[in-house]
């Protein structure tokens, strides 16, 4: 066995052959080959359910493969692999859900479980720990202090700490699962710099992302999985977003799916916001949304987009300004907004949008109690079920079973349920905040089609998104916020993602207003 291993390509850091995996039943991975070169940035792509996570879990020892060989730095890894062994070998994961401990300092997080001790004593040498951490931080030129408390750092810097933690484990392979999903565009750019820096240090990075542009920009090679099988491994010069998407979904996207031109829509104004101000959050925000129009809101995280949506919906109060809804002055409150035909799909789906332990029927029913209950307040089970089935059919929720607990659905389908809560009402205005975070590309497209379908029916839609292609794809008009103000509005014609990003970052040609 080991003789064979030595004969393999010495430029390879990891070589997996014929990996099979099933969790009691269907094959999640079948006969997958996966190899990584030393010091490369390797993208692993595929739709949700393609087997990416399972493959990563096998490599990192969280789960065991059923068959196949795995060789890491010349060591053959047995079927009975485990996480600690993988870590000792130098395999590290930068998790999508950050694995840092709140309340602890940067240094404490980096060295957790391997804190330097005073010689011969089980006592942590805090001074030495801080110095070691600071040394690492400085070596990579990060803008951090070893004694900073994690809670006080922005997400992007927390990710940097994760990377430092992996580096302190002498990781030679770093796996990043959707690292940009909660970063702003600028922060993402920072992260890419760091990834390239890691590469220059000879560290191999496996990069998992739904964002094709990132994959295209960064990767040296791309492995594409579909339905648990290896589809293709692309070399640098073969990589193009369109090609990757074709391989992932097994067909090419149509022109309509990938491109969109902004169209001016005028007519009846659904909502008009005038000079909205909110201490420290919003300043003089004014805009209108017309019937059947999709208005996009761009801007960095913290630019006030979410705050603006919450204010319009009536969750948070605002200090001054006025709102006119359907031609009448309107002071928003959640109850009135729901009764008046608003729909709101919040940013943090798990926290604000769904009740995971309740069925699809229950989730949809709760937002529509008025229409499913009798005058005395008793809920009609039949009506509730009808409504749920209506929403499932309308949005193509998978599985189409109204009794499934929402917590058991995939991210994309959960999002559909959140939207579905509002669709079956007499909807006039739909606000969606980051509708496709953590959703795979197929579900994303369905989401877009739903939004378009609604706007064609005359619903005014406001889309807030950090995903620039998403904004340009959906919006008829784009407003960019920065520090609580409207800094730029794009109407008519075409807009490039770069233009939106520049506005959001405060780099604007001519006068900045």
């Amino acid at each position: 066995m080991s003789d064979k291993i030595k004969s393999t390509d010495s430029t390879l850091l990891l070589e997996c052959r014929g990996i099979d995996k099933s969790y009691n039943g269907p094959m999640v991975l079948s006969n997958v080959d996966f190899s990584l070169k030393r010091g490369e940035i390797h993208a692993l792509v595929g739709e949700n359910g393609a087997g990416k996570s399972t493959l990563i879990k096998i490599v990192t020892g969280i789960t065991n493969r059923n068959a196949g060989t795995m060789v890491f730095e010349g060591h053959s890894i047995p079927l009975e692999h485990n996480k600690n062994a993988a870590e000792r070998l130098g395999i590290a994961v930068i998790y999508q859900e950050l694995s840092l401990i709140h309340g602890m300092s940067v240094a404490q997080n980096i060295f957790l479980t391997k804190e330097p001790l005073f010689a011969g004593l089980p006592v942590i040498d805090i001074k030495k720990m801080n110095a070691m951490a600071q040394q690492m931080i400085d070596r990579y030129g990060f803008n951090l202090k070893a004694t900073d408390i994690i809670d006080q750092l922005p997400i992007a810097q927390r990710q940097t700490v994760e990377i430092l933690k992996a580096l302190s484990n002498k990781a030679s392979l770093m796996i990043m699962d959707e690292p940009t999903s909660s970063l702003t565009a600028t922060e993402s750019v920072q992260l890419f710099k760091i990834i390239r820096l890691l590469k220059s240090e000879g560290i191999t990075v496996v990069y998992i992302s739904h964002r094709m542009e990132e994959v295209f920009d960064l990767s040296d090679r791309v492995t594409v999985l579909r339905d648990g099988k290896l589809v293709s491994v692309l070399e640098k010069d073969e990589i193009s977003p369109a090609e990757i998407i074709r391989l992932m979904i097994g067909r090419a996207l149509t022109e309509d799916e990938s491109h969109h031109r902004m169209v001016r829509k005028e007519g009846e104004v659904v909502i008009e916001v005038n000079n909205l101000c909110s201490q420290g959050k919003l300043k003089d925000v004014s805009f209108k949304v017309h019937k059947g129009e999709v208005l996009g809101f761009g801007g960095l995280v913290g630019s006030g987009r979410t705050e603006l949506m919450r204010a319009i919906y009536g969750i948070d109060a605002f200090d001054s300004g006025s709102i006119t809804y359907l031609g009448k002055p309107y002071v928003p409150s959640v109850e009135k907004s729901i009764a008046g035909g608003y729909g709101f799909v919040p940013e943090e789906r798990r926290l604000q949008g769904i009740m995971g332990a309740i069925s699809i029927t229950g989730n949809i029913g709760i937002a529509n109690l008025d229409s499913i209950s009798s005058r005395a307040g008793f809920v009609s089970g039949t009506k509730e079920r009808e409504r749920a089935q209506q929403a499932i059919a309308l949005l193509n929720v998978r599985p189409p079973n109204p009794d499934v607990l929402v917590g058991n659905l995939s991210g994309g389908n959960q999002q559909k349920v959140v939207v579905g809560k509002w669709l079956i009402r007499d909807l006039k205005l739909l606000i969606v905040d980051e509708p496709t975070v953590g959703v795979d590309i197929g579900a994303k497209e369905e989401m877009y089609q739903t939004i378009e379908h609604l706007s064609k029916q005359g619903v005014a839609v406001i889309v807030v998104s950090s995903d620039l292609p998403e904004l340009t794809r959906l919006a008829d008009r784009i407003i960019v916020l920065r520090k609580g103000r409207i800094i730029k509005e794009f109407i008519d014609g075409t807009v490039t993602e770069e233009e939106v990003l520049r506005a959001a970052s405060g780099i604007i040609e001519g006068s900045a207003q």
Partner: protein
Amino acid sequence: MSVSAIRRLILIGLLISIGAALSVANPSFLTLDNLMTMLQEASLTGIVAIGFTLVLITAGIDMSIGAVIAITSMICVNFISYTSLPAYIFIPIALAMGCLIGWFNGFFITYFKLPEFIVTLATRGILTGLALIAAVKDSQGFVKNVFIQDELFLSFGETVGPVYIVVIVFFVLALATQFFIKRTRAGSNVYATGANPTAARLTGIDTDRTLIGVYMFSGFCAALASIFLCARMMTAMPEFGIGSEMDVIASVVIGGTPFTGGIGDIWGTVIGTLFLALIKNGILKLGLSPYIQPIVIGGIIVVTVVLDVWYKGFAEQRVAKLARQKQMPTREGV
């Protein structure tokens, strides 16, 4: 200065000013005897509160502490009544039983993934019943609370100079535990487990072992307090400690360890314990209606918790602002 440091200073300031006010209001407050009994009271609660603090840091709760006090007292009194074993043998056995009960709590919580509240509440019920069964009975089967005369055992209730031994043990235990959680790897694991168990596991921390250890320590502390309580009262009763959970929880929460886990330390608990003991003593000294005491204690808890939440919101805003400012320079550089 950090939020928790400011909070602590305020509490110490209040401690001193309430103490000063009481000294003026009732001359018997500022006497050595009174201060020493007050410290003794505080220490009996405080020893239990130290173990409980660690449980709260892991975001758990231990409702069985009162019942552990009861059963430990019954174990001791049975040894005294029915054996001639010396105290230096049966006291370690009683303390080990406390650990064992904690182990059971931890085992059920981690192995069967049961909610801490339910497990420890069940343990509480079982131990309460066992304490009654184990109680020493007279010939007709009536529970007879024994008047303890074992001198070595009673020496736990004595003083060194004017200071009760229990007070010394409380402060030494506090010091050791504070050092343990702040300066050892196992201590870091406790915080990590409470702040984010998933992250802790991903980092390679055996969170189950940590939890079991913490519940064992909590059981140990309760058992230790029980021995001092028995020595002080020179007897053991099957209802000892039952219901004392509230004072322990109050001390810890006033001390600044929230129920959410990952935050808190022993110094806070020490201050919280002293604060509670002072309030209770003060109520007696002012000759206020005894019914006022639970109201005052409840009120203080509500006020501290409200202030904590309010201040946390305020601090988070400030942190978010700081974080945004930090982000600025890198952003412009793109």
